[in-house]
């Protein structure tokens, strides 16, 4: 068990740049009242960002300019979405998704 000093410094650097965007809104918003339009804009963020994260996992950014599609992820995603709509359960959806992906990778 050891810690390489270079790796430790990289971890600290990464921690600082991760902390800034997480903390800034909490420290800024205290002092200013956000206008109605901004609050409304923020209300659209959850659905937008969750969609972005899902789509982002399907897109494969290759070295060339054309973004590819990770068909394996897409094929696993479709039944996972159906199960999510059907069960409305976070836990069941995650377990189901893992199993579908394991099946796709091992048997297809």
């Amino acid at each position, binding site marked *: 068990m050891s810690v390489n000093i270079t790796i430790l410094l990289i*971890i600290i650097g990464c921690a600082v740049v991760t902390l800034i965007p997480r903390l800034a809104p909490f420290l800024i918003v205290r002092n200013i009242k956000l206008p109605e339009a901004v609050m409304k804009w923020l209300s659209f*963020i959850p659905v937008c960002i969750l969609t972005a994260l899902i*789509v982002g996992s399907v897109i494969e950014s290759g070295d060339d300019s054309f973004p590819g599609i990770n068909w394996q992820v897409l094929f696993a995603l479709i039944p996972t979405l159906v199960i*999510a709509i059907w069960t409305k359960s976070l836990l069941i959806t*995650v377990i189901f998704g893992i199993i579908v992906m394991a099946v796709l990778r091992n048997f297809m």
Partner: protein
Amino acid sequence: METAAKEELSFLQGIKDCVPTLLGYISIGFAAGMIGVASGLTVLEIAFMSIFVYAGAAQFIICGMLATASPASAIIFTTFIVNLRHFLLSATLAPHFTKYSVWKNAGIGALVTDESFGVAAGRIFNNKPINDRWMNGLNLTAYITWIASCVVGAVLGKWVSEPEKFGLDFALTAMFAALLILQMESVKASKLKHYVMLILLMVAAMYILSFFVSVDLAVIFATVIVATVGVVTDK
């Protein structure tokens, strides 16, 4: 929905509300720990990374870049870009915590993740109250589970050669899918069409933006653009 308003918002309730997301943290944490070991990190270094960085996708990328001996500046800059989306998550949550002290706000903000945000935003969306104790219960449960999972994954990683075979990495996408569907659950019937339109627009925006920028930047740009479209087209 009226009955839900009476439910007590304790630290314990926050822990309970975190439970459905734990499998996601555990599976991704395992995978992150295993990949860390495969990238040549020690268990202690992986523990430090999960304690201080505490971000799933970024930890995978840091490990990957360390394995290919990328320069420190490139690793830190990439981490910044990958985690910049937290600004949007925090900005959405922060207005609900303004009455608490600076330190309490800092404590809550430091532990914001996609998943804890998803759970908290689900409550806000449903016009259910959130408070500091509940948020801390949610955040700390996720944080401790994440660190423990990364460490266990790192220890197990010495014996498992191909963690992808178990499909664990897909847990993250599956969890986002479930969180999105749960969000949509609470959208009023009259607004459903508007939201579906925005989701389709997001898919298109993500794909088009990916031609020009990295996927991580596309997440941020597409969200900013489509949320703006959402405000403009909202009746």
